[in-house]
């Protein structure tokens, strides 16, 4: 029984890692409708920024994570202004291929700049080790991830659903020309939204290094999982992304625990079944 509680906690923690990484994608792919395969590459930028700042420059952990978000936001904004912007009106396929090109280049660039070896990240003492509550062992770092994930979820849902910024983005996605004719600078709006998505990618990347590791292959390794989480949740819905991430984390870990021979087969089968029954996603509206 105790083992099962631990497994459930492990699943929830893994779900939060997925959410932290997929939250930004939920904005760029889900909300803005841009098929952004380079999302995990931006997460990698954040991961390397944090790991190098802590390891080589001796920055404190939290400052490095914030900086990781800023660096990824800047990188994302530059990419958006120079490349992605040109393909907003193009087909999904062309967006996919353009961003895959960015992924290839990013992998090679990371190999060149930091080397192909595994990158370590040092976390401060207050995040290391376990917290014992009754009979349950809780890892401090995982608790920290859960708290951060909840904070991000609440503030993002607030931002997208209850501020004019969020309303403007949703309006621009729904009808770009109409929104522009209302006097809203759609170009700037898109750039800002993309930078926000990238910042989240960077923070997610920085926070997940300790659990998932970091090497130049990162942008490909987690891409498919993130795509599934966002689309199963429902394009354009952060709550959906969160739900899907939780579902995935728990099913994956529990499935591997009970039936290690079958492994990840269970989550893909679940995803396929869910997408077949609800193509619009768990929370999304039919389009």
């Amino acid at each position: 029984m105790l083992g099962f509680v631990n497994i459930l906690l492990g699943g929830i923690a893994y779900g939060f890692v997925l959410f932290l990484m997929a939250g930004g994608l939920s904005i760029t792919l889900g909300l803005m409708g841009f098929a952004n395969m380079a999302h995990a590459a931006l997460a990698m930028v954040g991961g390397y920024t944090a790991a190098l700042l802590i390891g080589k420059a001796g920055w404190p952990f939290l400052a490095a994570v914030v900086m990781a978000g800023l660096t990824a936001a800047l990188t994302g904004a530059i990419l958006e202004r120079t490349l992605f912007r040109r393909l907003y009106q193009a087909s999904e396929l062309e967006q996919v291929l353009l961003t895959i090109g960015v992924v290839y280049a990013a992998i090679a660039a990371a190999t060149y700049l930091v080397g192909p070896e595994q990158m370590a990240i040092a976390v401060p003492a207050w995040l290391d080790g376990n917290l014992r509550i009754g009979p349950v062992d809780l890892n401090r770092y995982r608790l920290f991830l859960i708290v951060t994930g909840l904070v991000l979820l609440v503030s993002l849902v607030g931002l997208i659903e209850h501020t004019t910024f969020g309303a403007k983005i949703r309006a621009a996605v729904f009808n770009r020309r109409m929104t522009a004719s209302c006097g809203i600078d759609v170009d700037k709006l898109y750039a800002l939204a993309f930078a926000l998505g990238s910042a989240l990618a960077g923070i997610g990347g920085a926070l997940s290094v300790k659990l998932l590791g970091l090497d130049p292959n990162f942008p490909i390794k987690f891409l498919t999982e993130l795509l599934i989480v966002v689309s199963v949740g429902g394009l354009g819905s952060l709550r959906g992304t969160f739900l899907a991430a939780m579902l995935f984390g728990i099913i994956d870990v529990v499935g591997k625990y009970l039936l290690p021979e079958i492994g990840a087969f269970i989550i893909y089968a679940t995803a396929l079944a869910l997408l077949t029954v609800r193509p619009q996603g768990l929370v999304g509206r039919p389009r």
Partner: protein
Amino acid sequence: MSDITLDLARIMVVNRARWTTIEVAFWIAAAAGYFLFPAKLVLLTQMLIGGLFAMSLDLLLGYGGIASFGHAAFFGLGAYAAGLLAAHGWGEPLSGVLFGGLAAGGLGLAFSSVIAKVRGAAVLMVTLCIGLLLFEAASRMPWLTGGDTGLQGIDMWPLLGLFEFDLFGRTAFWYAYAVAFLLYLAARRYIHSPEGLALKGIRENHDRVPMLGVSTARRKMIAFTISATIAGMAGALLAQTTQIVALETLSFERSVAALIMLTVGGLGTLIGGFIGAATFIWARDVLSALNPVYWMFWLGLILIALMLTARGGLVGALTLLTNYLARERHPR
């Protein structure tokens, strides 16, 4: 309908089905490659196989407007089916290809009703899940597929009982060439048949086609099954000519590579898949030989540049060129 309109319609269809310069040039160039690059036969063979795979995707995407993120599922299934057949004592190549096609086509048929139901980005995700599902299944059944080690022990009998598969890849090249060419002819026929025209109609205007009394779901299911069958045959060819099947044949990366090849070559042209595959595989080979460590960087840059400039793909650019030359020759 009067005879004249029928005749007109027939002439239009015949005209449309006429071979273009690019198509003829490609198949001649591919054959010439055998004599020009005798040391690169394996690469040439893999270009043809990649081309066939990309062409199968073109039937879906270029003609049916159905994008797929998991087409490697069918390619890999065909490869494993043909590989398993040969590893278990039946090494006859042609029946192996048919078997691979049959297996993949069967799976395609099974999933086609799901595909026909969903539209837009959800298609990408459903196909992605199908791909991942098959990858995971193959990876979790090492007793059957060899798992991460790959399927070993594929022993091919001589082609038609006459030609041994040799170290230089001569037999393999002509074998792949012949199969790819025959399937290309078949795909051409399909595209120019009423079936194929209806499929194009669905791509152009999904909601109006049913008003003509054509079932979109049925057309899509047929297209999906045919596409899966051809992808499976391409996979079977790869299994037979390399005599090994790796999990990589089912991977997301291979699905994406097919999308890249197709877009580079040109969507909705059939031959574009082959030209794109040849270009992509050649570029990858040259770049990775020049620099085995950082070649992906240049590949990425080329891809970015292509997406920003040449959206019609290579066939689009070549068609413009040949049209221009033709006009030069026959000034109006």
